[in-house]
């Protein structure tokens, strides 16, 4: 379930939980970063040494991050910076 730590200071995926309805398009596009919880909502795969929060996205997956942000039918995703 865990994955190797991604780039520090790289982009992060922010989920607006008040909008998310667990439609799951983001999980399909970023399976390395997200999994589905028992109710269909996206859950970040644990990052070693980090508390749960906005998951970091490896630079290599940046275009998939953009695709997920665009695909979300609830406009619940955005890109954040910071480590």
């Amino acid at each position, binding site marked *: 379930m865990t994955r190797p730590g991604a780039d520090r200071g790289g982009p992060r995926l922010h989920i*607006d939980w*008040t909008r998310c309805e667990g439609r799951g398009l983001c999980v399909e596009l970023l399976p390395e970063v997200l999994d589905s*919880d028992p109710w269909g*909502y996206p*859950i970040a795969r644990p990052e070693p040494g980090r*508390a*749960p929060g906005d998951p970091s996205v490896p630079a290599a997956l940046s275009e998939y991050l953009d695709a997920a942000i665009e695909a979300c039918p609830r406009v619940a995703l955005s890109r954040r910076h910071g480590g």
Partner: protein
Amino acid sequence: MTTTAPLPRSTARPRPNPGRPFTPVSPSGRLLAAAAPGLAEHLRRNGPPPSPSADLPDLVEAAGLTGRGGAAFPTWRKLASVGARPIVIANGAEGEPASGKDAWLLRSAPHLVLDGLGLVAGSVGASRAYAYAPPGPGAARLRAALAERGREPVPVEVVEAVDGFLAGEASAVAARVAGLPARPRDKAVRLSEAGVRGRPTLVHNVETLAHVAQIARYGPGWFRRVGTPDEPGTFLATLSGAVARPGVREAAFGTTLAGLAAMAGGLTGPVAAFLVGGYHGRWVPADAGAGLGLTPGPRPSGLAVGAGVVIALPASSCGLGASAAILRYLAEQSAGACGPCRLGLPALADAFAELAGRGNPRAAVSAARLAGLVAGRGACHNPDGAARLARSALEVFADDVALHQTGRCQARSGRPASRGSAQR
């Protein structure tokens, strides 16, 4: 007794060795001793309200004040980072049922709060200020106090808070003040940038504002004279449960749970554990926790007291049962805005209901898993708080998890509570 002109502001700078107009009975009884419901008595005890100044953040930083609403965020950082022409809100909603300090402040020391609100509002260049208080006595007292003070430099409007555990959540407060439903908002846009109607918004707990007023009156050095070097000052605590005289007390940081209990008249009997930090806090075993110093936020060698709620669970009560009831309440109080909270918390409460009953080996695993699932996934901290409570219950009452499966419980056996695994 009403004044028609605005209160004269004190132009004196805080003095390093203030000749205080009163001497508190105890070094840590500062808010308690400064409290006065009426304006005349308040002015006699404290003098005029301090003047706003642009270096208020520096003053507050030097004092080391942290927020008293539960998150213990450094107050000066909020003051320094808010945008231009902000709105300031004094948050007295106090949704936590076991907390009474804000209600006490609004009833017994509204002018301290209003001094702090006016001071902060003036210092950050606010155009408007709001006082968010529960309907009934709290809001009524504030309105009466405002009428006594006459025209405030920054106009203050009293807004009645909604009911419920999450009433005091900052973004919900800002939404309510803006006339919208009191629903927590996504934190991607910070309140300090855009809150009420898109304006930069500062939300401060009413106790924090009271401390700010006194820091401006007497100086950071005075504030630091009690407490510890790392955690200076005093805080208001609400004690309940197995204590002789439950209620609101004021204590210095560094005070131990045992010391706090003594202030409440001592324990009424053997205690299994303390719930420190309210329903979003942690269980602490009675013997292990008694000697730890209380701190505002999490520290390696201290006990985070959050908004000061301490409940002493008598040894005759089952910790798992109490935790199950709390988790059920937290699930019911969910705003329903976010899936993981709306769906995960009831499941967590169900798992704990099983543990509080007969229990089974899977229920504890399921509860731990659910706590991990909900933590950090929501617009507000309800799921985080519930996860924290659940995890600490699984740790501190681990023996009960096993005992229940054989139909026994530490509470009924009458044995003093074991330490659980908290010593690790």
